[in-house]
């Protein structure tokens, strides 16, 4: 970045190192002042709340359900090892992994197909991926609730073709379906970006040299598009692991996952330290995933 000279009359002085230094100092101060409102806001309304949650995870729950901050301990973290909590942890991880894998399998061929279309068609197809991506999340989950409900459209369809009633609402299958529905665009967008910008002459060369379609995919296309695969997987895995709305609506409270467990600890069970410790662990997992995402070269949201 070049130093901006404010007025031509100052140009003569700009050559001196003192002026350069003063100019530099002034620029720094200006940048700081510009950032200050947002900076102060985020420290007060984000960083301090974050600190409070971490602090609460070391606190003690008193008999009457309130939280005592005196005498910090690791009791709440010890609770994470108990079967009730660790079952929920394992189940949440499992559902998040299954969701990610399904999204991968569906999104890869889709993105590949998208990248082979003409630019006009491609843009139109992308718009129709973006629309559900930004549409109201709650409503999209509710749509599945209606679709899968008792005697609902899905059930009517399966009965009409003689497959009997559909009874997957309030099961883990419905939760995974809802998560895939909610987060599939998160997989498609970075994956498409990676496939789109790979060097397609290499694909052509591979085919010209006699490699089969599968060999070309396995040895050329997949390694080239790996950053997109990694970025997409992380973008699907993170929100799936912390999901709360989807399991509540489609799991019907029968399948408790991490998100619901945290909410219950705060709103009904009144065990804030345990809720805070689960939140802290979840946050750490997300941070690690985000670091991995940036390392994979991810930039898009």
């Amino acid at each position: 970045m070049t130093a901006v000279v404010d007025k031509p009359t100052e140009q003569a002085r700009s050559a001196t190192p003192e002026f350069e230094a003063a100019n530099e100092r002034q620029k720094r101060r200006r940048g700081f002042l510009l950032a200050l409102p947002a900076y102060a806001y985020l420290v007060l309304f984000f960083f301090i709340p974050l600190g409070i949650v971490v602090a609460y995870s070391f606190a003690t729950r008193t008999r009457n359900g309130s939280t005592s901050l005196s005498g910090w301990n690791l009791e709440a973290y010890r609770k994470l090892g108990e079967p009730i909590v660790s079952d929920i942890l394992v189940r949440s991880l499992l559902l998040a992994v299954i969701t990610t894998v399904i999204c991968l399998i569906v999104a890869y061929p889709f993105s590949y197909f998208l990248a082979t279309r003409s630019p006009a068609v491609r843009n139109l197809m992308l718009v129709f991926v973006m629309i559900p991506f930004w549409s109201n999340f709650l409503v999209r989950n509710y749509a599945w609730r209606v679709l899968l409900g008792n005697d609902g459209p899905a059930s009517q369809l399966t009965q009409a073709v003689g497959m009997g009633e559909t009874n997957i609402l309030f099961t883990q299958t419905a939760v995974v379906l809802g998560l895939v529905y909610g987060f599939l665009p998160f997989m498609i967008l970075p994956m498409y970006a990676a496939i789109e910008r790979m060097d397609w002459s290499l694909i052509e060369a591979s085919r010209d040299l006699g490699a089969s379609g599968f060999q070309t995919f396995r040895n050329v296309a997949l390694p080239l598009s790996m950053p997109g695969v990694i970025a997409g997987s992380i973008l699907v895995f993170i929100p799936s692991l912390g999901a709360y709305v989807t399991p509540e609506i489609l799991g019907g409270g029968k399948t408790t996952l991490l998100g619901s467990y945290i909410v219950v600890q705060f709103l009904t069970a009144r065990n804030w330290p345990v809720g805070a410790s689960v939140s802290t662990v979840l946050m750490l997992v997300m941070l690690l995933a985000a670091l991995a995402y940036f390392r994979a070269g991810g930039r898009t949201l």
Partner: protein
Amino acid sequence: MSTTRQLRGGTRWALSLNAFLVYLFFYAPIALLVFYSFSDDPLVGRWGGFTLGWYRDFGENQEVQNALSVSVKVAIISTLVSVVLGTMAALALERYRFRGNRFFDALLYLPVIVPDVTMAVMMLLFFTEGLSLVNTVFGTNLAKGLATVSLSHIAFSISFVSIVVRARLNGMNEKLEEAAQDLYASRWQAFRHVTLPQIMPGVVGGGLLALTLSLDDVVITQFVSGPGATTLPVYVFGLIRRGVSPLINAVSVVMLAASILLVVLSLVAQRARGESAA
């Protein structure tokens, strides 16, 4: 030299089918929801003849209308504040280097990364503790409500706005600002007449994103809204948990239409971005 991106034989057929199924998967549930919102049958998901009755209920239901007005107020307040703060933050980080700018950069990314359940918990503890502290010290009687909801929405929207504006600033020609200042424009004039028009698509896009996020949020709002500050998504979420009803269908379709309108607007803003960059 351009390379051909041809798919061969069976692959082409299989990939087309997959793409068709993906779009069916995306749009069939939404289409069915819209379809059944016009059904005159008290059971959702069954066709009982055409009616607009559920939409009339939507208009006449006082609770829904109250929730809607809270949602709109919160969305407008949080969008305005986060657009100003987010744009300033983006300018500071893209154009200047200052003490603590790396920490600020990281802090700005955190609200995007942290899951909403965790953020909800953070805001709940912060406002519970903070308000009780303020009330004991100043003898006031503040409670959670519209203000706490707006403050929380701003906290996550700033980050999204600044990311969108930064992407725009990144591809911008800095020389133009320098030229304006060399030609005796004041710093404010240079910003107002050179920088701002160029980053406008980013600012509008970021603002629409903030609006969408605010109108969509359920989890965080549920934790920080007092009894009088129920937003539409929180109200609907509460209804859904008690069971489905055709009224929810109608409310959902209205929310869906609003969010689709916002997406289309932001895509138009992005298109403007692409054209002015070319």
